[in-house]
């Protein structure tokens, strides 16, 4: 304000003193200058100030002008006062604000610390929560695993029920659910082995144990069920369904239980079979012809029984196969052998009765064959140790014995009081009788003639049983006869026997032995015949001297008649055949005897001829024997 007050008088002064250059260095002039030079139009501040200033005074008076400064100062003071007052308030307000701010800060600090504390506190909680959460997830996973594990390693309640049966219905039947459950138990048991390989050994062991227990219960139940089922197999036609088949297949895992069931089955079937057998024997409803009606016909009666059993065994075999669901002969044979056991006694009693009452050897032999055939058949179907096979073997042996004793008796009966030979020396009719008996036996050997070395032996026995006594009685019968008659008769008989026997198989040995015996007798006949020829031509004496090496003149003299005696023999040798030789039954034998006798005669002739030649010289020989030995041989043997 002072500047403005000072400037106003100076601006008027400077405008008067402007052109003086000497005032330039004077600060007042400078100030004036500046005022004068200032362009008010452009100075807004000044203008504003002036504007404000103009409102101060109501009247432009001197008073006013003189008091301007103080007025201004007063105004300035007032303004400042006002200002101070305002500031005072402000200060107060600012101070209160500051106080509040500091309060607030305090509060905030407080809050901060508290927050900090809370934060530390919460972070623990958070950690715990996240831990719990992860634990939760883990547990959920575990629970999944466990339920999966249980699903895999434990039975469902319904499975368990199917397996072990509910208490309410103990006798429930076995069905497919049972087998499925059983399969599962076994599967679990198997899977546990995997568990054992891991670290879960205890669980594995425990589950295995529990499954094993389940399995045991299941097997036990299965066993009882099977046993019950098997027990009902005693109907004529057993109903073997697939469940039982399956059950038994399962039960095979427990061989002892399986065997018990099989035994049960065998017993049931054995009963059924015996019943059917007795039925067929005594009261066949369908045909009205029970087998026993045929008991008067031994072969048919026995044949029917065996045939029935044969078919029954085949059917039982089918049943067993369908029970075991496979054709395991190892297993089915003992069963069959047990099933058929029951029929042994009724069969044995009946067949034995037939055997004992069959006295005729031919019939008996037919029975032997029938028995032997079926013994073979049953041996093929059953085990060798089966009671049925044993029964048949026993019966066959018995029948065989009975047959031989019958044959012996029959032979003895036929040969009893064999009569002396007829004058024609033909075989006794008894020989024919024996032979026809033998023929009927041998022609019914059919059934078993195939195979079995036993058979050949038996055949030999049959032949000896018949033929030995026959030959013996023939020998006995001819005792009182002459040697030649005896020989011819025996040759005739033996020839008949031999020609009959040789028609059959396996009789070679017998035929040979007969041939030998016959030959012996033939030799007798031959020597008789050749002796007869020697006698006719008068060789007897010389020959006996020659054989004793005592040739005398008399011996030579005995040959004197030879030439006359020899010529008729040579011209008609048949005339000199002994009558008995003509009685030989076979032309072939007659011829053979003749030839051999001539041969012997020629040999005698040769030896005598040689002896005479040595002793008496060629001359004498030629006179005594006009024909040399070669010629004689030619003449006689060419016949």
């Amino acid at each position: 304000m002072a500047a403005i007050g000072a400037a106003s008088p100076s601006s008027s002064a400077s405008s008067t003193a402007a052109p003086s250059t000497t005032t330039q260095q004077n600060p007042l002039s400078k100030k004036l200058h500046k005022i004068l030079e200032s362009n008010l139009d452009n100075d807004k501040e000044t203008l504003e100030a002036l504007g404000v200033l103009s409102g101060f005074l109501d009247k432009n008076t001197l008073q006013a002008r003189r008091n301007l400064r103080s007025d201004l100062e007063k105004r300035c003071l007032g303004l400042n006062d006002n200002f101070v007052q305002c500031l005072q308030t402000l200060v107060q307000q600012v101070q209160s604000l500051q106080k509040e701010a500091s309060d607030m800060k305090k509060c905030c600090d407080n809050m901060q610390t508290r927050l900090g504390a809370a934060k530390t506190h919460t972070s623990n909680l958070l950690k715990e929560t996240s831990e719990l959460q992860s634990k939760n997830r883990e547990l959920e996973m575990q629970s999944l695993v466990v339920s999966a594990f249980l699903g895999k390693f434990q039975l469902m309640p319904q499975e368990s029920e199917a397996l072990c049966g509910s208490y309410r219905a103990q006798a429930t039947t076995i069905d497919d659910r049972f087998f499925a459950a059983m399969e599962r138990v076994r599967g679990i048991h198997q899977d546990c082995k995997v568990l054992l390989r891991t670290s879960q050994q205890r669980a594995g062991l425990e589950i295995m144990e529990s499954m094993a227990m389940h399995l045991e219960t299941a097997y036990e139940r299965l066993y009882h069920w099977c046993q019950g089922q098997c027990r009902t197999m005693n109907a004529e036609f057993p109903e073997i369904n697939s469940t039982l088949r399956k059950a038994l297949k399962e039960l095979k895992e427990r061989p002892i239980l399986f065997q018990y069931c099989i035994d049960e089955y065998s017993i049931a079937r054995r009963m059924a079979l015996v019943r059917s057998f007795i039925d067929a024997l005594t009261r066949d409803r369908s045909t009205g012809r029970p087998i026993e009606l045929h008991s008067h016909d031994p072969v048919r009666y026995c044949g029917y029984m065996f045939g029935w059993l044969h078919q029954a065994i085949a059917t039982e075999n089918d049943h067993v196969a369908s029970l075991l669901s496979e054709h395991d002969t190892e297993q089915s044979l003992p069963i069959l052998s047990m099933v058929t056991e029951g029929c042994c006694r009724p069969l044995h009693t009946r067949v034995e009765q037939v055997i004992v009452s069959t006295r005729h050897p031919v019939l008996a032999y037919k029975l032997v064959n029938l028995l032997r055939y079926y013994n073979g058949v049953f041996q093929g179907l059953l085990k060798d140790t089966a009671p049925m096979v044993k029964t048949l073997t026993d019966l066959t042996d018995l029948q065989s014995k009975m047959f031989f004793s019958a044959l012996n008796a029959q032979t003895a009966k036929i040969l009893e009081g064999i009569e002396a030979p007829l004058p024609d020396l033909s075989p006794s009719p008894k020989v024919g009788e024996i032979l026809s008996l033998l023929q009927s036996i041998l022609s019914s050997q059919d059934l078993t003639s195939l195979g079995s070395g036993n058979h050949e032996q038996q055949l030999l026995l049959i032949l000896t049983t018949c033929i030995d006594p026959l030959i013996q009685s023939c020998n006995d019968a001819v005792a009182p006869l002459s040697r030649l008659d005896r020989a011819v008769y025996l040759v005739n008989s033996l020839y008949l026997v031999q020609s009959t026997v040789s028609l059959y198989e396996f009789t070679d040995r017998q035929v040979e032995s007969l041939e030998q015996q016959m030959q012996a007798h033939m030799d007798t006949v031959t020597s008789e015949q050749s002796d007869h020829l020697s006698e006719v031509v008068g060789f007897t004496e010389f020959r006996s001297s020659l054989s004793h090496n005592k040739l005398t003149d008399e011996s030579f003299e005995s040959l004197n008649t030879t030439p006359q005696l020899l010529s008729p023999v040579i011209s008609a040798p048949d005339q000199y055949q002994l009558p008995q030789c003509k009685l030989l039954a076979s032309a072939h034998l007659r011829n053979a005897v003749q030839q051999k006798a001539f041969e012997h005669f020629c040999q005698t002739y040769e030896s005598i001829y040689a002896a005479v030649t040595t002793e008496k010289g060629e001359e004498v020989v030629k006179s005594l024997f006009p024909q040399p030995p070669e010629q004689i041989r030619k003449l006689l043997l060419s016949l």
Partner: protein
Amino acid sequence: MSGGPYNYSYIFKYIIIGDMGVGKSCLLHQFTEKKFMADCPHTIGVEFGTRIVEVSGQKIKLQIWDTAGQERFRAVTRSYYRGAAGALMVYDITRRSTYNHLSSWLTDARNLTNPNTVIFLIGNKSDLEGQRDVTYQEAKQFADENGLLFMEASAKTGDNVEDVFIETAKKIYQNIQDGNVDLNAADTGVQLKNTTAPADRKQTQQQKQDGCNC
């Protein structure tokens, strides 16, 4: 033959009869093995074969007894007529003698089997047309006169073999359905095997009860 070898409802017993060498064993072999057996040895006594067939939806096991044709085996073979549900009587169309013996075989069959036994006459060796000795007409007439089923077949080519066995089974089954065969009686040659034929079982039981009431 599906369903395994044990699922059958009936067992039918057959017997095959006829002169020696007419091809009985070959027919059986052709039927059971579906093969022709050349140089077939003579049958000794009896032999047997089985096969399961299906008739009217029923599985039936045929148990077939093949007998020796030779006379000397009669003591054995005649025991097998008793339990036969079907008898296949075979002759050889190229050998008249085997045809001529049919009446004696038929007599045996009638005497020894039961009245319901189905008898089927078979002229075997139909493949040997050139050597034919017995005409179809003649045999057909014989069969008709005696109430037999008849067919010519060939064990060698397999012609008609299947039909012969199955036709016989059909006829037997028909007899059962008609109630002519008592399933409870022994030796009818028919056995009911499984429970798979409940209808028949019921019928059977019915028959049984009827029998009791009579």
